[in-house]
Protein backbone atom coordinates (compact mmCIF):
# COMPACT_ATOMS: atom_id res chain seq x y z
CA UNK A 1 0.00 0.00 0.00
CA UNK A 2 1.26 3.39 -0.87
CA UNK A 3 1.93 5.71 2.01
CA UNK A 4 0.12 8.80 3.19
CA UNK A 5 2.03 11.62 4.83
CA UNK A 6 0.46 14.74 6.24
CA UNK A 7 2.78 17.66 6.99
CA UNK A 8 1.40 20.52 8.97
CA UNK A 9 2.85 23.79 7.77
CA UNK A 10 2.35 27.48 8.38
CA UNK A 11 0.19 29.42 5.90
CA UNK A 12 3.18 31.55 4.85
CA UNK A 13 5.13 28.53 3.73
CA UNK A 14 2.40 27.24 1.42
CA UNK A 15 3.56 28.71 -1.86
CA UNK A 16 7.20 27.78 -1.37
CA UNK A 17 6.34 24.23 -0.34
CA UNK A 18 3.95 23.78 -3.23
CA UNK A 19 6.54 25.03 -5.68
CA UNK A 20 9.04 22.62 -4.16
CA UNK A 21 6.63 19.71 -4.63
CA UNK A 22 5.89 20.71 -8.18
CA UNK A 23 9.59 20.77 -8.93
CA UNK A 24 9.85 17.28 -7.49
CA UNK A 25 7.25 16.09 -9.98
CA UNK A 26 4.22 15.91 -7.77
CA UNK A 27 0.71 16.28 -9.16
CA UNK A 28 -2.00 18.10 -7.23
CA UNK A 29 -4.62 15.51 -6.42
CA UNK A 30 -7.10 17.42 -4.31
CA UNK A 31 -7.61 20.32 -1.96
CA UNK A 32 -9.90 19.52 0.93
CA UNK A 33 -11.21 21.62 3.71
CA UNK A 34 -12.66 20.73 7.08
CA UNK A 35 -14.23 23.21 9.40
CA UNK A 36 -14.26 22.73 13.10
CA UNK A 37 -13.07 25.54 15.32
CA UNK A 38 -11.03 26.86 12.45
CA UNK A 39 -10.61 25.92 8.84
CA UNK A 40 -8.25 23.08 8.10
CA UNK A 41 -7.01 23.14 4.53
CA UNK A 42 -5.37 20.02 3.17
CA UNK A 43 -3.49 20.11 -0.11
CA UNK A 44 -2.88 16.60 -1.35
CA UNK A 45 -0.23 15.78 -3.90
CA UNK A 46 0.50 12.55 -5.64
CA UNK A 47 3.61 11.07 -7.16
CA UNK A 48 3.97 7.42 -8.12
CA UNK A 49 0.87 6.57 -6.09
CA UNK A 50 2.28 8.14 -2.91
CA UNK A 51 0.05 10.71 -1.33
CA UNK A 52 1.70 13.70 0.27
CA UNK A 53 -0.40 16.30 2.03
CA UNK A 54 0.25 19.79 3.28
CA UNK A 55 -2.02 20.97 6.01
CA UNK A 56 -2.64 24.43 7.33
CA UNK A 57 -4.99 25.85 9.89
CA UNK A 58 -6.49 29.24 9.22
CA UNK A 59 -9.39 31.31 10.44
CA UNK A 60 -11.93 32.60 7.91
CA UNK A 61 -10.35 36.05 8.19
CA UNK A 62 -6.83 34.95 7.31
CA UNK A 63 -5.94 35.49 3.69
CA UNK A 64 -4.50 32.43 2.01
CA UNK A 65 -2.56 32.88 -1.19
CA UNK A 66 -3.96 30.91 -4.11
CA UNK A 67 -1.75 28.20 -5.59
CA UNK A 68 -3.41 28.54 -8.99
CA UNK A 69 -0.25 30.30 -10.16
CA UNK A 70 1.64 27.05 -9.66
CA UNK A 71 -1.03 24.50 -10.47
CA UNK A 72 -3.40 26.28 -12.85
CA UNK A 73 -6.26 23.85 -12.36
CA UNK A 74 -6.41 24.53 -8.64
CA UNK A 75 -8.85 27.32 -9.41
CA UNK A 76 -11.85 25.00 -9.24
CA UNK A 77 -10.93 23.64 -5.82
CA UNK A 78 -10.17 27.07 -4.48
CA UNK A 79 -13.39 28.58 -5.76
CA UNK A 80 -15.29 25.73 -4.21
CA UNK A 81 -13.63 26.07 -0.84
CA UNK A 82 -14.08 29.78 -0.77
CA UNK A 83 -17.74 29.49 -1.63
CA UNK A 84 -18.66 26.60 0.63
CA UNK A 85 -16.37 27.23 3.59
CA UNK A 86 -15.78 30.93 3.45
CA UNK A 87 -12.01 30.60 3.42
CA UNK A 88 -10.37 33.79 2.24
CA UNK A 89 -8.34 32.60 -0.71
CA UNK A 90 -6.95 35.47 -2.72
CA UNK A 91 -5.54 35.88 -6.23
CA UNK A 92 -7.29 32.93 -7.89
CA UNK A 93 -6.48 32.88 -11.59
CA UNK A 94 -10.05 32.30 -12.74
CA UNK A 95 -12.31 33.84 -10.15
CA UNK A 96 -15.97 32.91 -10.02
CA UNK A 97 -16.71 35.43 -7.25
CA UNK A 98 -18.65 32.91 -5.18
CA UNK A 99 -20.87 32.05 -8.11
CA UNK A 100 -19.70 28.53 -8.80
CA UNK A 101 -22.49 26.65 -7.11
CA UNK A 102 -24.78 29.57 -6.30
CA UNK A 103 -26.01 27.99 -3.09
CA UNK A 104 -28.92 29.51 -1.24
CA UNK A 105 -27.16 29.21 2.08
CA UNK A 106 -24.04 31.32 2.28
CA UNK A 107 -20.94 29.27 3.11
CA UNK A 108 -22.94 26.23 4.24
CA UNK A 109 -19.88 24.41 5.50
CA UNK A 110 -18.41 27.43 7.23
CA UNK A 111 -17.16 27.62 10.79
CA UNK A 112 -20.10 27.44 13.13
CA UNK A 113 -20.70 30.46 15.30
CA UNK A 114 -22.40 28.49 18.05
CA UNK A 115 -23.39 24.89 18.31
CA UNK A 116 -26.95 25.97 19.09
CA UNK A 117 -27.36 27.09 15.49
CA UNK A 118 -27.44 23.53 14.33
CA UNK A 119 -30.19 22.17 16.48
CA UNK A 120 -33.12 24.21 15.27
Amino acid at each position, binding site marked *: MAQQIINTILPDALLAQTQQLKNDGYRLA*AISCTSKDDLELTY*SFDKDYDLMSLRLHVTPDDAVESISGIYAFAFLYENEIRELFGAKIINISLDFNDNLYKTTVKTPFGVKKKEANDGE
Partner: protein
Amino acid sequence: MGNRTIIPFGPQHPVLPEPIHLDLVLDDETVVEAIPSIGYIHRGLEKLVEKKDYLQYTYVAERICGICSFMHGMGYCMSVESIMGVEIPERAAFLRTMWAELSRLQSHFLWMGLLADAFGFESLFMHAWRVRERILDIFEQTTGGRVIFSVCDIGGVRKDANAQALDKILSVMDTLEAETKELTQVFLNDSSVKHRTCGLGMLSGQDAIALGAVGPMARASGVDLDMRKLGYAAYGKLSFEPVVETAGDCYARTAVRIREIFQSIDLIRQCVRLMPEGDVIVKVKGNPDGEYFTRLEQPRGEVIYYSKANGTKFLDRVRVRTPTFANIPALLETLKGCTLADVPVLILTIDPCISCTER
Protein backbone atom coordinates in the same frame (compact mmCIF):
# COMPACT_ATOMS: atom_id res chain seq x y z
CA MET B 1 -11.38 38.97 -37.65
CA GLY B 2 -14.77 37.44 -37.27
CA ASN B 3 -17.67 38.23 -35.04
CA ARG B 4 -17.42 37.43 -31.38
CA THR B 5 -20.51 35.83 -29.99
CA ILE B 6 -21.27 34.12 -26.74
CA ILE B 7 -23.45 31.07 -27.03
CA PRO B 8 -24.97 29.64 -23.91
CA PHE B 9 -24.83 25.83 -23.94
CA GLY B 10 -27.25 24.07 -21.64
CA PRO B 11 -28.46 23.46 -18.98
CA GLN B 12 -31.24 21.66 -20.79
CA HIS B 13 -29.63 20.26 -23.90
CA PRO B 14 -30.89 17.42 -26.09
CA VAL B 15 -27.53 15.69 -26.27
CA LEU B 16 -26.66 15.73 -22.61
CA PRO B 17 -28.92 14.05 -20.12
CA GLU B 18 -27.42 16.16 -17.36
CA PRO B 19 -27.55 19.87 -16.85
CA ILE B 20 -24.27 21.66 -17.35
CA HIS B 21 -24.00 25.19 -18.54
CA LEU B 22 -21.16 26.53 -20.62
CA ASP B 23 -20.72 29.98 -22.01
CA LEU B 24 -18.96 29.43 -25.27
CA VAL B 25 -17.15 32.46 -26.63
CA LEU B 26 -17.11 32.03 -30.40
CA ASP B 27 -15.07 33.64 -33.09
CA ASP B 28 -17.33 32.86 -36.05
CA GLU B 29 -17.66 29.09 -35.68
CA THR B 30 -14.56 28.51 -33.60
CA VAL B 31 -14.64 28.31 -29.85
CA VAL B 32 -12.18 30.72 -28.30
CA GLU B 33 -13.03 30.20 -24.70
CA ALA B 34 -15.42 28.20 -22.60
CA ILE B 35 -16.58 29.33 -19.20
CA PRO B 36 -18.36 26.72 -17.14
CA SER B 37 -21.10 27.52 -14.76
CA ILE B 38 -22.08 24.55 -12.69
CA GLY B 39 -24.30 24.12 -9.68
CA TYR B 40 -27.44 22.72 -11.23
CA ILE B 41 -27.03 19.48 -9.35
CA HIS B 42 -25.32 20.76 -6.26
CA ARG B 43 -27.22 19.20 -3.37
CA GLY B 44 -24.63 19.58 -0.66
CA LEU B 45 -24.67 15.98 0.37
CA GLU B 46 -21.25 16.12 2.01
CA LYS B 47 -23.03 18.12 4.67
CA LEU B 48 -25.34 15.21 5.40
CA VAL B 49 -22.66 13.50 7.52
CA GLU B 50 -23.87 15.66 10.34
CA LYS B 51 -27.36 14.20 10.12
CA LYS B 52 -26.81 10.59 9.12
CA ASP B 53 -24.54 8.37 11.17
CA TYR B 54 -21.60 6.66 9.54
CA LEU B 55 -23.55 3.48 8.78
CA GLN B 56 -26.47 5.30 7.20
CA TYR B 57 -24.14 7.51 5.20
CA THR B 58 -23.25 4.51 3.03
CA TYR B 59 -26.63 4.96 1.37
CA VAL B 60 -26.00 8.63 0.80
CA ALA B 61 -22.56 7.88 -0.66
CA GLU B 62 -24.12 5.44 -3.10
CA ARG B 63 -26.43 8.12 -4.32
CA ILE B 64 -23.70 10.60 -5.19
CA CYS B 65 -23.98 9.26 -8.68
CA GLY B 66 -26.20 6.67 -10.26
CA ILE B 67 -23.70 5.53 -12.85
CA CYS B 68 -20.78 4.62 -10.64
CA SER B 69 -22.95 4.22 -7.57
CA PHE B 70 -21.25 1.04 -6.45
CA MET B 71 -17.77 2.56 -6.53
CA HIS B 72 -18.90 5.50 -4.45
CA GLY B 73 -20.30 3.19 -1.83
CA MET B 74 -17.17 1.12 -1.95
CA GLY B 75 -14.87 4.13 -1.67
CA TYR B 76 -16.71 5.45 1.33
CA CYS B 77 -16.75 2.05 3.03
CA MET B 78 -13.05 1.56 2.32
CA SER B 79 -12.14 4.87 3.87
CA VAL B 80 -14.13 4.17 7.03
CA GLU B 81 -12.76 0.64 7.20
CA SER B 82 -9.22 2.00 6.95
CA ILE B 83 -9.88 4.38 9.81
CA MET B 84 -11.34 1.63 11.97
CA GLY B 85 -8.73 -0.91 10.96
CA VAL B 86 -11.32 -3.39 9.73
CA GLU B 87 -10.03 -6.19 7.56
CA ILE B 88 -12.79 -7.33 5.22
CA PRO B 89 -13.15 -11.03 4.31
CA GLU B 90 -11.36 -12.07 1.16
CA ARG B 91 -14.52 -13.16 -0.59
CA ALA B 92 -16.00 -9.73 0.03
CA ALA B 93 -12.93 -8.12 -1.53
CA PHE B 94 -13.29 -10.26 -4.61
CA LEU B 95 -17.01 -9.62 -4.87
CA ARG B 96 -16.38 -5.89 -4.57
CA THR B 97 -13.79 -6.07 -7.31
CA MET B 98 -16.16 -8.02 -9.52
CA TRP B 99 -19.01 -5.59 -9.04
CA ALA B 100 -16.67 -2.65 -9.51
CA GLU B 101 -15.50 -4.01 -12.84
CA LEU B 102 -19.06 -4.75 -13.89
CA SER B 103 -19.90 -1.14 -13.02
CA ARG B 104 -17.03 0.00 -15.17
CA LEU B 105 -18.37 -2.11 -18.01
CA GLN B 106 -21.88 -0.71 -17.81
CA SER B 107 -20.55 2.81 -17.48
CA HIS B 108 -18.37 2.43 -20.57
CA PHE B 109 -21.27 1.00 -22.56
CA LEU B 110 -23.45 3.86 -21.43
CA TRP B 111 -20.79 6.28 -22.51
CA MET B 112 -20.34 4.54 -25.86
CA GLY B 113 -24.04 4.92 -26.51
CA LEU B 114 -24.07 8.58 -25.58
CA LEU B 115 -21.05 9.28 -27.75
CA ALA B 116 -22.74 7.56 -30.69
CA ASP B 117 -25.80 9.69 -30.03
CA ALA B 118 -23.65 12.83 -29.94
CA PHE B 119 -22.25 12.23 -33.39
CA GLY B 120 -25.63 11.22 -34.68
CA PHE B 121 -25.21 7.46 -35.05
CA GLU B 122 -28.57 6.43 -33.65
CA SER B 123 -28.42 2.69 -34.30
CA LEU B 124 -25.02 2.40 -32.67
CA PHE B 125 -26.44 4.14 -29.61
CA MET B 126 -29.28 1.63 -29.46
CA HIS B 127 -26.95 -1.33 -29.85
CA ALA B 128 -24.60 -0.16 -27.14
CA TRP B 129 -27.52 0.23 -24.75
CA ARG B 130 -28.96 -3.11 -25.74
CA VAL B 131 -25.71 -4.82 -24.80
CA ARG B 132 -25.58 -2.84 -21.57
CA GLU B 133 -28.87 -4.34 -20.41
CA ARG B 134 -27.16 -7.72 -20.09
CA ILE B 135 -24.91 -6.30 -17.39
CA LEU B 136 -27.84 -4.70 -15.60
CA ASP B 137 -29.48 -8.12 -15.49
CA ILE B 138 -26.43 -9.52 -13.73
CA PHE B 139 -26.62 -6.65 -11.26
CA GLU B 140 -30.25 -7.32 -10.54
CA GLN B 141 -29.71 -11.00 -10.11
CA THR B 142 -26.74 -10.68 -7.77
CA THR B 143 -27.52 -7.51 -5.85
CA GLY B 144 -31.21 -6.81 -6.29
CA GLY B 145 -30.86 -3.38 -7.88
CA ARG B 146 -30.42 -2.32 -11.47
CA VAL B 147 -28.74 0.98 -10.84
CA ILE B 148 -28.21 1.45 -7.14
CA PHE B 149 -27.12 -1.78 -5.55
CA SER B 150 -27.06 -0.95 -1.82
CA VAL B 151 -24.73 -3.87 -1.44
CA CYS B 152 -21.60 -2.39 0.07
CA ASP B 153 -21.48 -2.12 3.80
CA ILE B 154 -18.79 -1.24 6.27
CA GLY B 155 -17.07 -4.55 6.95
CA GLY B 156 -17.82 -6.26 3.66
CA VAL B 157 -20.77 -6.76 1.36
CA ARG B 158 -24.36 -7.51 2.24
CA LYS B 159 -25.16 -9.99 -0.49
CA ASP B 160 -23.33 -13.05 -1.71
CA ALA B 161 -23.31 -14.39 -5.23
CA ASN B 162 -23.86 -18.14 -5.44
CA ALA B 163 -22.08 -20.50 -7.81
CA GLN B 164 -25.00 -20.43 -10.20
CA ALA B 165 -24.87 -16.67 -10.50
CA LEU B 166 -21.11 -16.75 -11.02
CA ASP B 167 -21.53 -19.26 -13.82
CA LYS B 168 -24.09 -17.03 -15.42
CA ILE B 169 -21.69 -14.12 -15.22
CA LEU B 170 -19.06 -16.13 -17.08
CA SER B 171 -21.48 -17.09 -19.82
CA VAL B 172 -22.73 -13.53 -20.17
CA MET B 173 -19.13 -12.36 -20.42
CA ASP B 174 -18.65 -14.64 -23.42
CA THR B 175 -21.64 -13.31 -25.34
CA LEU B 176 -20.74 -9.80 -24.27
CA GLU B 177 -17.23 -10.13 -25.60
CA ALA B 178 -18.44 -11.31 -28.99
CA GLU B 179 -21.00 -8.52 -29.25
CA THR B 180 -18.59 -5.89 -28.06
CA LYS B 181 -16.04 -6.91 -30.66
CA GLU B 182 -18.59 -6.24 -33.39
CA LEU B 183 -19.66 -2.91 -31.96
CA THR B 184 -16.21 -1.62 -31.25
CA GLN B 185 -15.18 -2.33 -34.80
CA VAL B 186 -17.54 0.47 -35.72
CA PHE B 187 -16.07 2.88 -33.19
CA LEU B 188 -12.49 2.13 -34.11
CA ASN B 189 -12.64 1.55 -37.86
CA ASP B 190 -15.67 3.18 -39.38
CA SER B 191 -14.60 6.13 -41.46
CA SER B 192 -17.61 8.27 -40.57
CA VAL B 193 -16.92 7.80 -36.88
CA LYS B 194 -13.22 8.41 -37.29
CA HIS B 195 -14.02 11.55 -39.18
CA ARG B 196 -15.68 12.90 -36.06
CA THR B 197 -13.11 11.79 -33.50
CA CYS B 198 -9.64 11.73 -35.08
CA GLY B 199 -7.54 14.77 -34.38
CA LEU B 200 -10.27 16.44 -32.36
CA GLY B 201 -9.56 17.89 -28.94
CA MET B 202 -5.86 17.23 -28.77
CA LEU B 203 -4.39 17.03 -25.30
CA SER B 204 -0.70 16.35 -25.02
CA GLY B 205 0.74 14.29 -22.21
CA GLN B 206 2.40 17.34 -20.69
CA ASP B 207 -0.85 19.28 -20.76
CA ALA B 208 -2.72 16.38 -19.25
CA ILE B 209 -0.39 16.44 -16.26
CA ALA B 210 -0.34 20.22 -16.08
CA LEU B 211 -4.15 20.37 -16.14
CA GLY B 212 -4.56 17.58 -13.65
CA ALA B 213 -6.46 15.19 -15.89
CA VAL B 214 -7.20 11.74 -14.51
CA GLY B 215 -8.52 8.43 -15.73
CA PRO B 216 -9.06 7.62 -19.41
CA MET B 217 -8.57 11.30 -20.24
CA ALA B 218 -4.99 11.17 -18.94
CA ARG B 219 -4.31 7.65 -20.17
CA ALA B 220 -5.31 8.59 -23.70
CA SER B 221 -2.53 11.19 -23.62
CA GLY B 222 0.09 8.68 -22.59
CA VAL B 223 0.01 9.28 -18.84
CA ASP B 224 0.19 5.96 -17.07
CA LEU B 225 -2.07 6.62 -14.11
CA ASP B 226 -4.38 3.93 -12.86
CA MET B 227 -5.33 3.79 -9.19
CA ARG B 228 -6.16 0.11 -9.46
CA LYS B 229 -2.41 -0.40 -9.34
CA LEU B 230 -2.61 0.55 -5.65
CA GLY B 231 -3.99 -2.94 -5.15
CA TYR B 232 -7.08 -2.06 -3.15
CA ALA B 233 -9.84 -4.68 -2.75
CA ALA B 234 -8.63 -7.69 -4.73
CA TYR B 235 -6.81 -5.82 -7.49
CA GLY B 236 -3.47 -6.73 -5.95
CA LYS B 237 -4.13 -10.37 -6.72
CA LEU B 238 -5.23 -9.88 -10.32
CA SER B 239 -2.98 -9.35 -13.27
CA PHE B 240 -3.61 -6.39 -15.53
CA GLU B 241 -1.78 -3.49 -17.09
CA PRO B 242 -3.22 0.03 -17.40
CA VAL B 243 -4.45 0.82 -20.88
CA VAL B 244 -2.45 3.68 -22.35
CA GLU B 245 -2.75 5.40 -25.71
CA THR B 246 -0.55 8.22 -26.86
CA ALA B 247 -2.42 10.25 -29.48
CA GLY B 248 -4.43 12.34 -26.99
CA ASP B 249 -7.37 13.07 -29.27
CA CYS B 250 -11.01 11.99 -29.03
CA TYR B 251 -10.20 8.84 -30.97
CA ALA B 252 -7.54 7.84 -28.45
CA ARG B 253 -9.94 8.42 -25.59
CA THR B 254 -12.48 6.21 -27.33
CA ALA B 255 -9.83 3.57 -27.88
CA VAL B 256 -8.76 3.63 -24.23
CA ARG B 257 -12.30 3.04 -23.03
CA ILE B 258 -12.90 0.31 -25.57
CA ARG B 259 -9.74 -1.52 -24.61
CA GLU B 260 -10.76 -1.11 -20.97
CA ILE B 261 -14.00 -2.91 -21.73
CA PHE B 262 -12.02 -5.99 -22.77
CA GLN B 263 -9.72 -5.54 -19.81
CA SER B 264 -12.69 -5.45 -17.47
CA ILE B 265 -14.15 -8.59 -19.02
CA ASP B 266 -10.81 -10.27 -18.39
CA LEU B 267 -10.67 -9.00 -14.80
CA ILE B 268 -14.17 -10.26 -14.09
CA ARG B 269 -13.19 -13.70 -15.38
CA GLN B 270 -10.12 -13.68 -13.15
CA CYS B 271 -12.27 -12.66 -10.18
CA VAL B 272 -14.76 -15.44 -10.71
CA ARG B 273 -12.00 -17.96 -11.14
CA LEU B 274 -10.10 -16.91 -8.03
CA MET B 275 -13.16 -16.29 -5.85
CA PRO B 276 -12.43 -17.82 -2.43
CA GLU B 277 -15.08 -19.33 -0.21
CA GLY B 278 -16.03 -17.84 3.12
CA ASP B 279 -17.94 -15.10 4.84
CA VAL B 280 -18.72 -11.86 3.09
CA ILE B 281 -19.06 -9.51 6.03
CA VAL B 282 -17.49 -8.97 9.43
CA LYS B 283 -19.27 -7.28 12.28
CA VAL B 284 -18.06 -3.79 12.97
CA LYS B 285 -18.03 -2.52 16.52
CA GLY B 286 -17.42 0.92 17.91
CA ASN B 287 -17.04 4.23 16.19
CA PRO B 288 -14.32 5.42 13.83
CA ASP B 289 -11.68 7.86 14.99
CA GLY B 290 -9.05 9.29 12.68
CA GLU B 291 -8.72 10.34 9.08
CA TYR B 292 -7.88 8.66 5.83
CA PHE B 293 -7.58 9.34 2.14
CA THR B 294 -8.88 6.53 -0.04
CA ARG B 295 -8.19 6.57 -3.71
CA LEU B 296 -9.76 4.33 -6.27
CA GLU B 297 -10.21 4.16 -9.99
CA GLN B 298 -13.70 4.84 -11.23
CA PRO B 299 -14.81 4.49 -14.85
CA ARG B 300 -14.03 8.19 -15.22
CA GLY B 301 -10.79 8.22 -13.32
CA GLU B 302 -9.31 8.65 -9.91
CA VAL B 303 -11.66 9.44 -7.07
CA ILE B 304 -10.47 10.56 -3.66
CA TYR B 305 -12.47 9.88 -0.56
CA TYR B 306 -11.37 11.76 2.50
CA SER B 307 -13.07 10.87 5.75
CA LYS B 308 -12.40 12.39 9.10
CA ALA B 309 -13.93 10.91 12.19
CA ASN B 310 -13.95 12.01 15.79
CA GLY B 311 -14.91 8.89 17.70
CA THR B 312 -18.63 9.51 17.63
CA LYS B 313 -21.29 8.01 15.40
CA PHE B 314 -21.20 11.07 13.18
CA LEU B 315 -18.21 11.77 11.00
CA ASP B 316 -16.64 15.21 10.97
CA ARG B 317 -16.21 15.38 7.27
CA VAL B 318 -16.50 13.34 4.13
CA ARG B 319 -14.98 14.88 1.10
CA VAL B 320 -15.22 13.41 -2.36
CA ARG B 321 -13.00 14.58 -5.16
CA THR B 322 -14.61 13.09 -8.21
CA PRO B 323 -12.89 12.44 -11.54
CA THR B 324 -15.00 14.82 -13.60
CA PHE B 325 -14.11 17.63 -11.24
CA ALA B 326 -10.47 17.03 -12.06
CA ASN B 327 -11.15 16.71 -15.76
CA ILE B 328 -13.04 19.97 -16.22
CA PRO B 329 -9.91 22.17 -16.60
CA ALA B 330 -8.62 19.81 -19.26
CA LEU B 331 -11.99 19.92 -21.02
CA LEU B 332 -11.98 23.72 -21.06
CA GLU B 333 -8.52 23.66 -22.57
CA THR B 334 -9.39 21.16 -25.31
CA LEU B 335 -12.55 23.05 -26.21
CA LYS B 336 -10.47 26.01 -27.35
CA GLY B 337 -10.10 25.95 -31.10
CA CYS B 338 -12.79 23.42 -31.95
CA THR B 339 -15.88 24.27 -33.92
CA LEU B 340 -19.29 24.69 -32.34
CA ALA B 341 -20.65 21.50 -33.90
CA ASP B 342 -17.92 19.45 -32.27
CA VAL B 343 -18.63 20.69 -28.76
CA PRO B 344 -21.05 17.89 -27.76
CA VAL B 345 -18.65 15.18 -28.94
CA LEU B 346 -15.78 16.80 -27.10
CA ILE B 347 -17.73 17.16 -23.89
CA LEU B 348 -18.75 13.55 -24.08
CA THR B 349 -15.25 12.23 -24.57
CA ILE B 350 -14.34 13.26 -21.04
CA ASP B 351 -17.38 11.21 -20.00
CA PRO B 352 -18.80 13.93 -17.80
CA CYS B 353 -20.71 13.03 -14.71
CA ILE B 354 -22.13 16.23 -13.39
CA SER B 355 -23.87 14.84 -10.35
CA CYS B 356 -20.53 13.43 -9.20
CA THR B 357 -18.85 16.75 -9.80
CA GLU B 358 -21.26 18.90 -7.88
CA ARG B 359 -22.46 16.43 -5.29
